[in-house]
């Protein structure tokens, strides 16, 4: 989990994102994406700040934020694991990889570990199907993942 930021920090992060993309509704998704990237999720304080800046109801921001998979209104772990559960990865052995991931982490889909290290998510196709089964940890892509490789991959993250 990203360290708790002061209200001041959150506010300036929101302002920076707005300045970067422009204070229009058209820029809403890019602004939310930037805040989500910087803070790891979209905390309520950031949404309130953004609602004031863009002069739109906070409920509207939550409506948009909760629609998109890459935006999270809940805190996530330091490392986010996405496992592709679509058919191309499934038919080449994805199911066993998924079982191993769950066993190794003791987590089910959508859960975060208590120590705040991991969030485990299933994902629809990630577009790297030539090398399935595929998992993505943060921004790192792993293809041709076999169950045996899972512990070694996880060990790379502190």
């Amino acid at each position, binding site marked *: 989990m990203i360290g708790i930021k002061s209200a001041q920090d959150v506010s300036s992060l929101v302002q920076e994102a707005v300045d970067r993309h422009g204070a*229009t*509704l*058209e*820029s*809403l*998704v*890019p602004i*939310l*994406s930037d805040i989500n990237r910087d803070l790891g999720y979209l905390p309520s304080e950031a949404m309130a700040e953004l609602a004031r800046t863009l002069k739109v109801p906070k409920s509207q921001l939550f*409506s*948009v934020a909760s*629609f*998109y*998979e*890459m*935006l999270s209104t809940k805190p996530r772990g330091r490392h986010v694991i996405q*496992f592709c*559960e*679509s*058919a*191309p990865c*499934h*038919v*080449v052995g*994805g*199911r066993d990889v*998924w*079982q191993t991931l*769950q066993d190794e982490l003791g987590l*089910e889909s959508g859960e975060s570990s208590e120590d705040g290290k991991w969030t485990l998510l*299933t994902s*629809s*196709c*990630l*577009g*790297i*199907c*030539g*090398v*399935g089964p595929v998992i993505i940890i943060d*921004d*790192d*892509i*792993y*293809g*041709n993942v076999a169950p045996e490789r899972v512990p070694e991959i996880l060990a790379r993250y502190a």
Partner: protein
Amino acid sequence: MKPIRSMVLVSSDPESISRGAQEVLRRLQREVEANDLADEIVVSTVSDVGRHDALPMVIVYPEAVIYGPVTAEDVPFLVEEHLVEGRVAAGLQASTKELSGRIAWLSARRGTLPAEQRIVLSRAGLIDPEDIEEYIIHDGYQALAKALTQMTPADVINEIGKSGLKGRGGAGFPTGMKWRFVSQTDAYPKYIICNADESEPGTFKDRLILEGDPHSIIEAMVIAGYAVGANEGYIYIRGEYALAQERLAKAIEQARQMGFLGENIFGSDFAFDIHTHTGAGAYICGEETALIESIEGKRGEPRSRPPYPTTHGLWGKPSVVNNVETIANVPPIIQNGAAWYRRFGTSNSPGTKVYTILGNVNVTGLIEVPMGITLREVIAIYGKGMKNGGTLKLAQTGGSSGSIIPASLQDTPMDFDSFARAGVSLGSGALLICNEDTCVVDLARVLLNFFRHESCGKCTPCRVGNQRAYRILTAISEGVGTQRDLEDLKMLSQNLTEFSHCGLGQTAAVPIHDMFKHFSAEVDAHVQLKVCPAGACPMSGQLAKAA
């Protein structure tokens, strides 16, 4: 231009980068420098070349020798052997068995062998996508010059119409007709939108075009803008495609500097500029009206159609929405003419189609071939046969929204019309090849899991129907399905088709429909005998918490 002896290319797709391609590239540059070869050898990057078994790869031209997987530590040896001594660096080649085939494949892209036919991917993997000059050297921006200086907007639309180009995103709508609709409206402004929200499972053709040849999309969009009278374009890129976003942003900047975007393009009075808009993870945003909602900063929920985007699109203005692969065909058609384009493919489906080959075959990857090739040919020639000598049971086309094609249809030509006659759909070009170990119930369950997850929730048939269908399929695969479940499933599938608001719900029914149509005996075995003939389903009433 100074004479260059060799060109050394390092693969730079995301998978290669995650396996250390950047280090290999830097080390190569240092070694070439250290050996005093910088004047005669160019070190550059290529995008995905459609081969994934030996990444990162280093390809040396003109010999077209492919090394891989290459580590930074391998580089000094490779440079010494191949670039200094002039012989193949022993032991580093990507499996030699494959190599002759690959050289043929690479040569074919220069038009010397009738293997693949590359139109939209003609430069991907051959040029440095981050260098506009390489694009220009390879005939880039010539079609735009021709359109702006020698053709009227009506000429451009006529040429695209005559070429018979149809949408490659899945629906197959004639592109020329779409452009004509927009050109005929009086409203202004108009918009050109390139749909790069590729998220159909198994499909990554648009990513390779964007990563490997981003300028072709820019050029195509400017031509489209000229044709219909739009001065602004949007590229909606999938949020997960970070490398494509980066390359496109660079390409747009370079195009602005060179004057291919901006005011007075090629000295004409035509102006055009392009914005990129990054998605945030929602399959439904590939649906054109949902995509438009998303650009406007809303939830990506589809609008009612009609009115269509051609009259009421972005901010209610006329908009052309074209898929990446579709629009990438535009510059070659304008440059070479509709008659040239019609030489490829079939009379009703001219041109080529990019397919991704996945699943239980020996070689997975990406090909661009004329319309009308058969599945049997694809598996034998490009997939190099079934993996471990297996037998083809079915292929699933076009991601989740395609059809399940039984082996009996493997000799049907893959073009829009032949497939429609056979009652199947080409979809977006993914070919998921499945062997006898694949259970059709399990496959349908995974596909429905996708749809229940990606349904936007706006309309009830799709929101509830997909959940119900998924649960029933799960029950069947656990060996607790009943005859009543089968009846319910058929009814759900019919409701999805008839009452869903948009294409997502309508196509969600396809796997269920195809399952009953082609594999009813297998489904019955699950329900009546509690047996999974393929041995893939758990059948114990205890499904692993699998995807």
